[in-house]
């Protein structure tokens, strides 16, 4: 009798905590940086993914394999959501030299919500996130969840979860010019030889202090190119990132811009990221 009651409690606890398939290895919650919101005043919603040790989920570009984590928000009428913002991910090199970009332990995927100005007082809003992911260790498992959050409006500000949101907002990549740790970024993309559509690229970052020890190059996906092996070298105040973009066979890509994040650990070992872009001109080797 006791055992049965105990089992029931455990089962109830598990289903309450996960609200999704058992052994999913990921738990998803929807959180806000306010406990009540103000009409017309933007606030942050965040999907917190808590990931079992040894498992990882993927960034918007998963890398050589994997699947991007996706979030779509369902909002009350008149509310708008900004773009989904991914904190700076980690670069993993898996056996076979397979490169992945993603998150271990936990991540907060963020979006800014703007409520309408005209709402009844004490408006009750329900927000829902439709989240899907691939989580991998030795094996991979597809998962999804639809966590929701109810928030009421109020006339005065009511912050919530300040440490959690501050921590993850600080890990969103910023434009390098807005980062006081970066003095300059210079990038080149030189048409290759023998394939004139390949691009030998360099990104040179000049820091305002000695270069960080851990620097990751995290490119967004490019439709027509494969990214070949990347080298990151730092000396004194400079980090040099070298990589080759090879067009997929049969492709003759036109001009494009590679968007990328350069991730690093700052002096307090906090993960930070800067946005950079590399212009890929359409010229070939002959008219270079």
């Amino acid at each position, binding site marked *: 009798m006791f055992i049965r009651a105990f089992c029931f409690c455990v089962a109830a606890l598990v289903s309450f905590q996960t609200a999704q398939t058992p052994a999913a290895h990921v738990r998803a919650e929807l959180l806000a940086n306010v406990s009540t919101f103000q009409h017309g005043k933007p606030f942050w919603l965040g999907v917190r993914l808590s990931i079992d040790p040894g498992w990882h989920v993927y960034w918007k570009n998963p890398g*050589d394999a994997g699947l991007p984590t996706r979030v779509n928000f369902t909002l009350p009428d008149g509310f708008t959501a900004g773009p989904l913002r991914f904190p700076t991910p980690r670069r993993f090199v898996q056996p076979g030299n397979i490169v992945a970009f993603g998150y271990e332990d936990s991540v907060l995927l963020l979006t800014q919500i703007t409520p309408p100005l005209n709402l009844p007082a004490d408006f009750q809003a329900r927000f829902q996130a439709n989240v899907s992911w691939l989580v991998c260790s030795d094996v991979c498992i597809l998962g999804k969840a639809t966590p929701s959050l109810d928030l009421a409006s109020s006339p005065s500000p009511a912050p919530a979860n300040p440490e959690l949101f501050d921590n993850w907002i600080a890990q969103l990549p910023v434009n390098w010019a807005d980062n006081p740790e970066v003095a300059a970024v210079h990038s080149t993309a030189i048409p290759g030889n023998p394939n004139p559509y390949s691009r*030998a690229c360099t990104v040179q970052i000049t820091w305002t202090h000695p270069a960080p020890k851990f620097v990751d190059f995290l490119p967004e996906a490019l439709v027509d190119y494969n990214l070949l092996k990347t080298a990151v070298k730092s000396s004194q105040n400079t980090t040099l990132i070298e990589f080759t973009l090879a067009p997929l*066979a049969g492709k003759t890509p036109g001009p494009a811009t590679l968007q990328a994040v350069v991730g690093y650990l700052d002096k307090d070992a906090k993960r930070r990221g800067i946005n950079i872009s590399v212009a890929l001109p359409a010229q070939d080797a002959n008219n270079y």
Partner: protein
Amino acid sequence: MRKTAAFASLLALVSFALIARSFAEDQKDSGVSIGAKAPDFTLQDQNGKNVSLHDYLGKIVVLEWTNPQCPFVQRHYQAKTMQTLASQYESKNVVWLAINSSNFDTNEANQQWAAQQNISYPELNDSSGATGKAYHATNTPEMYVIGIDGTLLYQGAIDNDPQNEKTNDKVNYVRQALDEILSGKPVSTPQTKPYGCSVKYKD
């Protein structure tokens, strides 16, 4: 002034040459090239019988990197994507070989999977990962199509639908390549980005 400009352009040339040189080494890491000879291999099938690529010269060969534990592979087997293609093209001089480069792969596991999925084609055990690495296979599933002369004609995804959400605009790249090869046309999409689980290599 002129001298400075000349020096600057010389410097640019030299640094270009240096950069081009340092990247040349990376080209090796791009994997097998479309139009190049596909690397030969000899691997055991689910019954312990040796199967070599060179046995099939004169036939079109489809290689399917597989891992029964991967949800993308499971999804395509539930939809019978691979089984249907393999049986539809069997009479058209096309051979289908599935290769499992997972470090935990065994002939017994391949036998079980083949029986469970009612597969007649070989499930090859590459648990050492040597063949997967020779082809630079990174995903399961990942597909390669090899022509009758042993050259690689297609590498990449099975289709254009990683998220399994397309209906009318779904393209099966392997079917497209096989149809083009069989009607004597060049393969219009010889390379795509594969999607799926990472290949679970040993090292």
